[in-house]
């Protein structure tokens, strides 16, 4: 039986915690942003589109530093959060989740947006002629039909979160047990003399976790696809 060292266990559970929080926080926003970009046209749409995709093209360190400026305790948003809700993001695992969410956001939005684009608008029109309000149409027709895209978006975001390094280390530093996720722990071991054995163990854990997540996602996607396509055979 494989046994983990306390450092490994911390890093593993922290990585999962950060990744899960990151995707659950960004999911509603991601669906909203994808809907906006897919269905609406408004002035400044390309600017919004560009801003959402920014983390994909700028170096992660830049994003991390930007978060530090905005969300630090002295920053415009960070100060407000601290004074009003007593929430501190900097140097905490919550901050790590925010950094992951921002980095993963464009991937999630892209995937969901594509599935919004592929939904047959005719089905939504048909639902409306059957008396369904726009909210009901969205909840009962659109949302179930974009579900495969939502799942893909969540998986991409989850994977991106597990691998997040640059923005995290810049924004919330590398504190064992608080912000030291798997990649950060691995980085620390590679910088430590004689840390090779631990580094390899962390490497194996990272790969195993990634494979596990992929297999789970594959199973869920298949199930959803089968649900939408219908179980019956073609006649």
């Amino acid at each position: 039986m494989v046994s983990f060292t306390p450092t490994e266990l911390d890093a593993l559970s922290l990585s999962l915690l950060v990744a899960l929080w990151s995707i659950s926080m960004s999911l509603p926003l991601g669906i909203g942003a994808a809907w906006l970009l897919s269905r609406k046209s408004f002035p400044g749409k390309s600017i919004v589109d560009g801003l959402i995709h920014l983390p994909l093209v700028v170096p992660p360190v830049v994003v991390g530093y930007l978060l530090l400026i905005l969300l630090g305790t002295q920053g415009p948003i960070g100060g407000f959060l601290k004074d009003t809700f007593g929430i501190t993001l900097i140097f905490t695992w919550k901050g790590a989740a925010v950094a992951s969410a921002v980095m993963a956001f464009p991937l999630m939005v892209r995937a969901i947006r594509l599935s919004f684009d592929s939904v047959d608008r005719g089905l939504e029109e048909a639902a409306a002629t059957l008396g369904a309000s726009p909210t009901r149409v969205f909840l009962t027709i659109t949302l179930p039909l974009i579900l495969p895209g939502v799942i893909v978006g969540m998986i991409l975001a989850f994977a991106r979160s597990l691998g997040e390094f640059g923005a995290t280390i810049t924004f919330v530093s590398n504190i064992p047990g608080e912000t030291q996720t798997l990649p950060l722990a691995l980085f620390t071991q590679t910088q430590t003399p004689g840390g090779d054995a631990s580094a390899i163990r962390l490497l194996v854990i990272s790969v195993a976790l990634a494979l596990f997540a992929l297999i789970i996602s594959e199973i869920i996607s298949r199930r959803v696809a089968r649900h939408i396509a219908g179980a019956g055979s073609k006649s």
Partner: protein
Amino acid sequence: MLTVQIDKKLGDFHLSADFAVRGASITTIFGKSGAGKTSLINAIAGLSRPDTGAIHLGEIPLFDQERGLCLRPHERQIGYVFQDDRLFPHLTVRKNLLYGATPLRGQPTEIKFADVLDLLGIRPLLGRKPNALSGGEKQLVAIGRALLSNPRLLLMDEPLASLDFQRREDILPFIEKIRDEFGVTIIYVSHAIEEVIRLSDEMIILSNGKVAAQGPVDEIMSRLDLHPLTGRFDAGAVISTKFASYDPVYDLGELNFPGGQIQVAGLNMEKGTPLRAHIRARDVSLMTAEPKGSSVLNVFKGRISDVREEDGPQLDLSIDIGVPLIARVTRKSYDNLGLRVGSEVHAMIKAVAIDRRSVGGIKGRGR
């Protein structure tokens, strides 16, 4: 009762419609592809907004540009059967059917789930998903789904266009039954004249975004000037008749009409059933003398009342045999026989040229 008076510009295309539709009847909107049929009923359903005008369903205004009023599709209580079935792929047939059947839309004549299942014969399909259905079954479910939303008006946009001939024949009687059993007002869009004659009480011809003619089907079909719009190949008179008798020895049905009797191959119905017979102009031939020794069963004596002059080798003639009958002859025969308006002729119609396809029920008329 629906009144429509709208204008809408779509690029170069200009839709301009002004008409009224009676309740509990089938009105067809007939026109070639690109005539604006779908644009027109999308405006009625609220899927697109006209530039100007007004649409009223009974007393309720659905759209009124001057008052700045435009109800959204889900507020209109108008059912819509699309050309493609548009069934929700993630829901079973049962859930599709019940999607619009909310008790909130209570109508005096509420359409019941069981009745619709029985009428359309779709009970065995309830547990399936749409992709496990055939094309015809999908359309039946789409029709049932629209009916179950208890619409005040049912729009059908070429619901049978994607089906083969046999499936069309299977589904057409269901549409007649919907009108007769549920008393739903139906607007049926089609570019197939046979469907129009078979189903509708009134027809509206749409051409280039404008209403070219509106009226009872037999009246419209008898107008020679509309032949370019109703289609040259299938053009011909539509005669209102009653089923008189059936001859089992020769498998011939006899229909009564104000000008006499027509014999029709392979038709047997209840005596007195009102029927509309479509007699294509190309199936009618003319003789100046009384025909003798002819195989043709239906011969009617009448006078030429109108001639439609056209370029080309043929002419359409309107012949008064008690009702207007239309015959298509070559210009050569017309000249050789010395025909002109007022000439007395014998019109011959082969019984085999009229079959079940050319005959439609008119039960809904006059209600």
